[in-house]
């Protein structure tokens, strides 16, 4: 797929795809989508990039170390965000009763912890997608398994 046309279009499209993915992630509580879907879109954009150019270019954009950090960091962030409610004296992952607002339609930052949850999941899913793809393509020189 080392085609000039493909590369140029990819260069053009990928930022928009990623932007869309971020939108889906952050507006998970307001419109269809959320962390899972948005993360997958972002991840897919990275895969697209890697496919259009080549693997080295792709992994230069998102190195294995960073990907690992994001993957673990997303999950850790999610759990830590869940603990916040507990520190406030409520049950794990509690949103409304812990004092966070439940959300006003149309307002991005109106829903408290859910925003953080979405972002964390988005990170996690997106980076996991990339890792999975790289692993499949690169073969067995690096071992990795999915979560």
């Amino acid at each position: 797929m080392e085609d000039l046309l493909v590369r140029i279009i990819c260069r053009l499209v990928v930022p928009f795809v990623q932007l869309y993915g971020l939108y889906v992630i952050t507006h998970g509580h307001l419109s269809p989508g959320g962390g899972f879907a948005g993360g997958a879109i972002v991840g897919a954009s990275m895969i697209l990039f890697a496919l259009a150019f080549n693997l080295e270019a792709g992994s230069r954009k998102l190195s294995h170390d960073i990907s690992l950090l994001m993957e673990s960091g997303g999950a850790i962030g999610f759990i830590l965000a869940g603990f916040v409610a507990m520190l406030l004296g409520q049950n794990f992952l509690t949103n409304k009763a812990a004092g966070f607002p439940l959300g006003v339609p149309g307002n991005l930052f109106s829903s408290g912890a859910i925003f953080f949850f979405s972002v964390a999941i988005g990170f996690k899913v997106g980076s996991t997608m990339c890792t999975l793809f790289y692993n499949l393509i690169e073969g067995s020189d690096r071992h990795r398994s999915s979560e």
Partner: protein
Amino acid sequence: MIDIEVLSKLFNNYYYFAAIILFIIGFHTMLTHANLIKKIIGMNIMETAAFLIFVSIGYIEGGRAPILDEGFDQIYMNPLPQALILTGIVVAVSVTAYALSLIIKLYQHYGTVDADEIARIRSYKP
């Protein structure tokens, strides 16, 4: 007539009907095909079929997607199955990805992705 009754029942519940058929196709593909990649595809079909049943349970004729909007008096779909299925899809994809990575490794060891052939190779060279 019983036959017509059954048929009409099936027709009225066509989502369930289709989902069960898909489930059986997936199940069958997964169990009977020797090719491992086919098996994984069958697995995906089977899981989507199960998801389909789940979501169609929450489906209400004429209802709207469960998104809170200006008008509060509308009928919404049951959001619970949908939320669950999201998780389910992600799980399914991870299983698929993991299985595929195993298949690739297996191919590197055996040079084939056919379960029968692998069994033959194994029994040939103990």
